[in-house]
């Protein structure tokens, strides 16, 4: 992992990892066959799969297929799976620290601290899965013989644009999953290595195939496809390049998506539950009583 793909002392050539897309539980190259080059740990050039609009299409249909099963899991069970992902990141913390160091250019200690914070944040959101109902649900007083109550349900397929840091990615992806949605995450070139490695952690965390899909590519190319896709129900634009946001918002308006957008977020502070609450739909039930 991360080491230079060169001959080591005993004459063995180390095996370099191919960074692929994660769609429907499988690691695939882009349908287009393209890849771009990023600088990985140790200054090594890394080939990363470069997703096309058809990869977005495939990811959305995989997510949509998985939506009924994932959103029907008990909140407790979803929390367990989010917690499992925290465990997986923890056990790969060395790899993630190297990637953070390479892609975000912070110090070594800061990189380690960011990985730890990301693990803690997955655990924090894992705890919210079975508590969010208590914030968003209510029993409503109505002037009639009805028991009237409201409760949150997942929005559906949510696309998130990945910020360029591990902590940022965690802060946008975890709340979407905690609310019971399925996700298609689109990472730009910066943050692509972290996103691709996160896919490997996700793949070993009991997330059912298709519930989390992770694409790496160029945001200017994919923003239009994602924002206008009518099979996507929600959009988190916080990780999108600022100059692309206006167009994405207009695309989202044309297809009536929930949009969450935060100007220039500081990912180090605790992000709260505003994202979880943004990606739920409140259903109100009028139940006749006293008849």
């Amino acid at each position: 992992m991360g080491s230079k793909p060169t001959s080591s002392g005993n004459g063995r050539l180390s095996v370099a990892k191919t960074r692929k897309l994660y769609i429907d539980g499988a690691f695939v190259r882009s349908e287009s066959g393209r890849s771009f080059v990023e600088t990985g740990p140790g200054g090594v050039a890394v080939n990363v799969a470069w997703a096309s609009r058809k990869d977005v299409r495939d990811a959305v249909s995989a997510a949509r297929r998985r939506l009924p099963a994932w959103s029907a899991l008990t909140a407790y069970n979803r929390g367990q799976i989010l917690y499992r992902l925290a465990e997986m990141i923890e056990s790969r913390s060395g790899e993630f620290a190297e990637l953070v160091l390479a892609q975000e250019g912070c110090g070594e200690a800061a990189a380690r601290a960011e990985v730890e914070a990301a693990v803690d944040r997955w655990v924090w959101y894992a705890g919210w899965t079975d508590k969010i109902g208590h914030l968003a649900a209510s029993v409503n007083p109505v002037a009639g013989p009805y028991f009237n109550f409201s409760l949150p349900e997942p929005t559906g397929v949510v696309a998130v644009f990945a910020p360029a840091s591990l902590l940022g990615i965690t802060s946008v992806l975890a709340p979407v999953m905690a609310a019971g949605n399925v996700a298609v995450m689109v990472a730009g070139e910066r943050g692509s290595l972290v996103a691709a490695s996160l896919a490997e952690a996700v793949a070993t965390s009991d997330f059912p195939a298709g519930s989390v899909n992770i694409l790496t590519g160029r945001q200017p190319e994919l923003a239009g496809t994602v924002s206008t896709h009518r099979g996507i129900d929600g959009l988190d634009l916080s990780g999108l390049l600022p100059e692309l946001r206006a167009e994405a918002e207009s695309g989202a308006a044309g297809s009536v998506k929930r949009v969450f957008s935060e100007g220039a977020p500081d990912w180090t502070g605790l992000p709260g539950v505003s994202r979880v609450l943004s990606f739920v739909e409140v259903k109100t039930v009028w139940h006749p009583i006293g008849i």
Partner: protein
Amino acid sequence: MTGSAAQGSPSPPAVPEASAAFGGHAPGVREGGESLAGFLRGLPGVDQTGLESRAAALATRSVKAGSKIRALELAISMVDLTTLEGSDTPGKVRALCAKAMLPDAADPAVGPVAAVCVYPDRVSLAKAELSGSPVLVAAVATAFPSGRSQLAVKLADVEAAVTAGADEVDMVIDRAAFLAGEYAHVLFEIGEVKKACGGAHLKVILETGELATYDNVKRASWIAMLGGADFIKTSTGKVAPASTLPVALVMMEAVREYHRETGRLVGVKVAGGIRTAKDAIRYLVLVNETLPAQWMDRSLFRFGASSLLNDLLIQRYKQTHGAYGGPDDFSLE
């Protein structure tokens, strides 16, 4: 590779003779069993490897842009919108009929589909719902889907559907008799059902998933056509595997040979397991490469499907609007 596997040599000269003997619903059909079996066994064998590789090669054909829109709209016009469940309520049939007449509520230019396919007891309702529209009503009959009942019961089933106003009848062949080698019995039944249909078009379901070999599919296709079928249809949709590309290719080639020998045009209906627009376009490519141009029309080619229609609409949306469509924009039925 060009041509196909089953193309081989043209059908043996025995064909017109066989048509005369067995195609005219003659009362002596049962006695003719021996020569019918001989004729069917004398059909050139299907080269399985060649057939499958040709079907696979044609499936890679890429249809884009303007051609794709035309293919999608053609496929929409060829759909037999189907509901064949024990739970078919009158409301569900009404909704299906509404969808058949206006598949895309946001775009009246789309559709209508070719027909609605229901059980016989829902025919009168569907007929009333569709009155004044070009959408036909097809009824599955003859103890669908197994076909395991007395002939009298099957014929009564057909007559009830036709009396209720069915424009088309989808019958199933007796697969058990076919597999036991009683070809003449299968032919006789088809002939009886054809008579019971009167003016209604007869589609004969071969249920290819139960016929085991491509040679059997070819023989069953011939029996159906000799029996007077207006369409031959792959499957009931109740047995897996249902329609596959190689099976459809065998049937199309049989239709082509039959047309060459007799001049009669027999349609093909593929049904069961066709859920995506991509699948549908592959079948259209197959039709285009195998049969004369008249078959690229709903009068001679149909898709029996329910969920396929929505995928066709979603893909058409992508072509006309430039953005991917979503399933929530279209009614379920």
